[in-house]
């Protein structure tokens, strides 16, 4: 039996947390109030600024979604290929794939983007902001997808691949008809989770001068100086894209759990 939410015994624990949070609130309240008093002016948050710039913001949002979708597509493809190569233990290619996976999962996306955007042109490869962003995000996503797929493939009992191979199927046929169909269900939640991260990761493309939502927001801020409202507005856009996806993950997990 699962430990149901300890809701049924909230007393001591939640009392402690309640007090803690109350203190936190009071502290923040004092800070903000103190700051306001120091300013001497009433705080006026101009939310209208978001409406005024709605087209620019929507443009940024659209670019963000497009970037994320592209990187998700390539990333999934790369991930699948890399996973297949690794599981097949193709000499040299499998080691290369392993190195790729370790490096792109073990280092910050920020630096990967910098290396592509600043480094490649230096060795002679011409690349624009869009291509750099797509490449960097795809390679990064690809490494994570590779691990997801590899885990799924290894979870399929080995005996089934043996049976398929014993009947004369090739490695690729075995993957296509026997193994991969079975990992679709189990890989879906982490895969969608990965895509949610990808949407958030697109914000880093602003740092290599690609005009997505973050950069758009920042240029509006430079004009209007309305920092709070605009960053919160941008955050809201990301939230509106990501939250439904995270709920989707939850419902997919539930459905898988019930069918097993």
């Amino acid at each position: 039996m699962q430990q149901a939410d300890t809701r049924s015994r909230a007393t001591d624990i939640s009392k402690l947390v309640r007090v803690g949070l109350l203190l936190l609130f009071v502290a923040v309240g004092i800070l903000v109030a103190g700051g306001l008093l120091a300013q001497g002016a009433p705080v006026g948050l101009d939310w209208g600024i978001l409406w005024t710039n709605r087209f620019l913001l929507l443009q940024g949002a659209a670019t963000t979604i497009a970037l994320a979708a592209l990187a998700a597509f390539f990333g999934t493809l790369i991930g699948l290929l890399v996973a297949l190569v690794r599981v097949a233990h193709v000499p040299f290619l499998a080691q290369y794939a392993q190195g790729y996976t370790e490096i792109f999962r073990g280092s910050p996306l920020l630096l990967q983007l910098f290396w592509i955007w600043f480094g490649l042109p230096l060795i002679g490869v011409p690349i624009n902001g869009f291509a750099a962003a797509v490449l960097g995000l795809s390679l990064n996503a690809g490494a994570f997808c590779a691990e997801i797929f590899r885990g799924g493939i290894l979870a399929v009992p080995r005996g089934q691949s043996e049976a398929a191979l014993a009947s004369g199927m090739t490695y690729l046929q075995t993957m296509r008809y026997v193994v991969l169909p079975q990992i679709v269900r189990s890989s879906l939640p982490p895969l969608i989770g990965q895509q949610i991260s990808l949407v958030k990761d697109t914000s880093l493309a602003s740092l290599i001068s690609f005009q997505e939502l973050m950069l758009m927001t920042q240029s509006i801020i430079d004009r209007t100086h309305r920092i709070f409202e605009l960053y919160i507005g941008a955050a809201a856009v990301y939230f509106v894209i990501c939250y439904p996806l995270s709920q989707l993950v939850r419902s997919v997990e539930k459905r898988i759990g019930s069918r097993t």
Partner: protein
Amino acid sequence: MGGSAPHRGAMMLAPRVAPVFGQSWQLLTSIVWVGLIFLGGTALLLLGVRQIVILAGIATSGGRGWTPHFEVVLQNLPFLLEGLLSTLQLSASVGVLAFGLGILVALARLSRLGPLYQLATWYVEVLRNTPAIVQLFLIYFGPPTVGVRLSVPVAALLGLTINNSAYMAEIIRAGIRSINRGQTEAASAVGMSYPQITRYVILPQALRVVYPPLVSQWISIVLFSSLASVIAYPELAEHAKRLDSRTFRSFEIYGAVTVIYTICTLSLALVLRLIERRVFPVAR
């Protein structure tokens, strides 16, 4: 060892025995081997792309005369390692603080009190569904508009801690929920109070269960510490940027720093796994 067929079909069945983890020597040599193949392969790949681009006549003007100058990295290694130290310090602080805060939020998410649960849920959902960089910018650039000025280190620490606490909270909560109800019943039967049960019975077991995802999150903290460079916090990514603006050897610098991070996170993962064996010996 026997069993590996060179042809494709059987290749999938190749090593039936997974490499023995206990042999650190084997592990080290295989890591070095993989690293060499990857670096060599990538070097070949890039050189090939460069040749194609040059032959096609679309090479960038600066790129034609490029030769590798990795000594720039070697000469400034102390500077970069300073940054690495700073990264590790920041990550350690965030790791501990976010973990502690995460436990509190997790407990709030499990509480029966409506408002508390709602609050905690909003906290977690907002932080997990918005980019960390937006949160960081809000914390650093926001307060000055109302006269409160946070220093760079404080803003970085606060921003990263709050962001990661949301992920930690979900991981810990999942762990707590997976603990058998019978444990709580047994403990309360001997007269322990609920805070005591949580502290001595539930949490230790929950943490053992979710240790792997926690390790992932800690590694993620190290990686995301690089965001602090955007608000000029002097950690490894920021030192890399400064070195780049001084020497313009972007390819070598960012490439090398990427490798440094990778070695760092791989070692960290290894160390944390070894700690797991000590702290959570497999008793089952």
